[in-house]
């Protein structure tokens, strides 16, 4: 018979915090550079949390959770690791640690999501949760050109009202997603704004919302090593993006 409590005392079963394996069930091309990977796994997670995805022999990097069940990530091909991910075909495997980090806190009756590039990834999970709590969800999507717009159909399918804009004017409004935010914020005054995208975009979002007194939350990116709040690699203005974030309810000063 096991010692009562050996699982605790022994610690051995706590391989849980080590990477877990999952098989790629489906690969969905989203844009020319972005692909979605649906895994044969399901986890408990809150919108905004992320995974550390490991490809043995390659590297381990952070990716937002797009959907917890089936576990899904959406990846932009921007370098070595993401290229290796893009070579995965259904039946092949990847490993993940997580869900990690602090996610979004849902509040307000009608909310506005602002996504630049693959920033749409964590916001998709947020939209899923917001829909389940019966919130009204507006989404502002921005990209360079029409072919780079991520998830317009998915958000619409969830019952969100979607506005789009492209820098080259090839689809929707012409300009930056922050211009879109500005006009939407003034027209509708959302209860809360949730944003994810490049640092410059987040800075603009913060400025717009702070000027109008609209509460906002942003999901940030920083280079990560441990992903567990220990090594300090991801620190920005004294906050650890991997553990105190990646979602912050205001942009850390000086970030």
């Amino acid at each position: 018979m096991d010692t009562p409590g050996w699982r605790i005392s022994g610690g051995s079963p706590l391989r849980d915090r080590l990477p877990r394996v999952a098989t790629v069930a489906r690969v969905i091309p989203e844009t020319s550079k972005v692909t979605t990977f649906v895994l044969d796994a399901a986890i408990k997670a809150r919108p905004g949390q992320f995974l550390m995805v490991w490809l043995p022999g390659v590297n381990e990097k952070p990716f937002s959770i797009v959907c917890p069940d089936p576990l899904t990530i959406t990846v932009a091909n921007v370098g070595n690791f993401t290229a290796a991910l893009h070579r995965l075909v259904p039946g092949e495997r990847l490993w993940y640690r997580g869900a990690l980090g602090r996610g979004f806190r849902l509040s307000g009756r009608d909310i506005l999501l602002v996504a630049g590039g693959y920033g749409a990834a964590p916001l998709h999970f947020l939209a899923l949760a917001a829909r389940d709590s019966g919130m009204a969800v507006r989404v502002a999507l921005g990209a360079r050109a029409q072919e780079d717009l991520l998830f317009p159909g998915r958000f619409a399918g969830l019952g969100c009202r979607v506005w789009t804009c492209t820098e080259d004017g090839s689809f929707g409004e012409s300009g930056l997603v922050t211009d879109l935010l500005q006009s939407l914020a003034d027209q509708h005054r959302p209860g809360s704004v949730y944003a994810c995208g490049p640092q410059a975009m987040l800075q603009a979002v913060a400025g717009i919302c702070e000027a109008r007194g609209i509460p906002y939350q942003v999901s940030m990116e920083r280079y990560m090593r441990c992903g567990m709040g220990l090594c300090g690699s991801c620190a920005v203005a004294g906050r650890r993006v991997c553990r105190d974030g990646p979602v912050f309810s205001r942009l850390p000063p000086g970030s």
Partner: protein
Amino acid sequence: MSRLDLSVTICGVLLKNPFVLASGILGTGAAILERVARSGAGAVTAKSYGPGPRAGYPNPTVLDWGSGLINAVGLPNPGVEVGVGELLETKERLRPLGVPLIASFFADTVKGYGEVARTIAQAGPDLLEINISCPNVEDEFGQPFAADPRAAAQVTLEVKRATSLPAIVKLSPNVADIKAIARAVEQAGADAISAINTLGPGMVIDIEAGRPILAHRVGGISGPAIRPIAVRCVYDICSAVSIPVIGIGGVLRGQDAVEMIMAGASAVGIGSAVYYRGPGVFKRLEVELSTYMEAHGYARLADFRGVALEG
């Protein structure tokens, strides 16, 4: 708790409590070190700087394997030239808080240690910490300075010649006779010793991938798993030398810190506990230590320091 005095003075530097942020934990910049100081640390150690920039190893670099952590980060740092600037800013921010700054550094030759020490001293840290757990490139077997009493002493001498700052030598547990190393660095002029650096190395294999998980394959063990080894090392060192010792390794709770102090430690390093209990761990350790002391009628740390060494 007003009667309690948790302070300790190490090499003339006053720490308001014995809890020292260990090197390589969070210490990547001025802002985060200030945050740790504000969270209640008695002193903070910055990450180890080396002679030139290092990228470190690819990920995975740190894992929780169940009874502790394993890491092979590979000493990423921008090099001591950039480091001086980071440390200057850090010192600036810590000064008003009264929290001393310990600057950790490494090199791969004896001379290199002297040079890095001279440069890093320009930042005016309160204490230097010599990380000798690096391979000695001049040694024909490439074994770390930490494993050889003579090499450890040479490094200490060189650093003491290069600067007038008090120098802590950080020892590795992965040696045949830690007392011999401790005596050697004390004789070479070390002002204090910190122990232990990570244990091992160890390896964790993913049985789905059929390969070690860390990109570097092996890594140093820290956290709860190493506590009894760290306590024994501190006990051995304290029975061999009379300079102060910073006890590091697996301290998660106030009771663990009491154990270290009873083994002879003057201060207590906190590393992996930042993962297990968050940066708020410093305040909580202070409460736990104070509670213990009150319950036992101790007014200061000296009242029970080293009691396990007696009899």
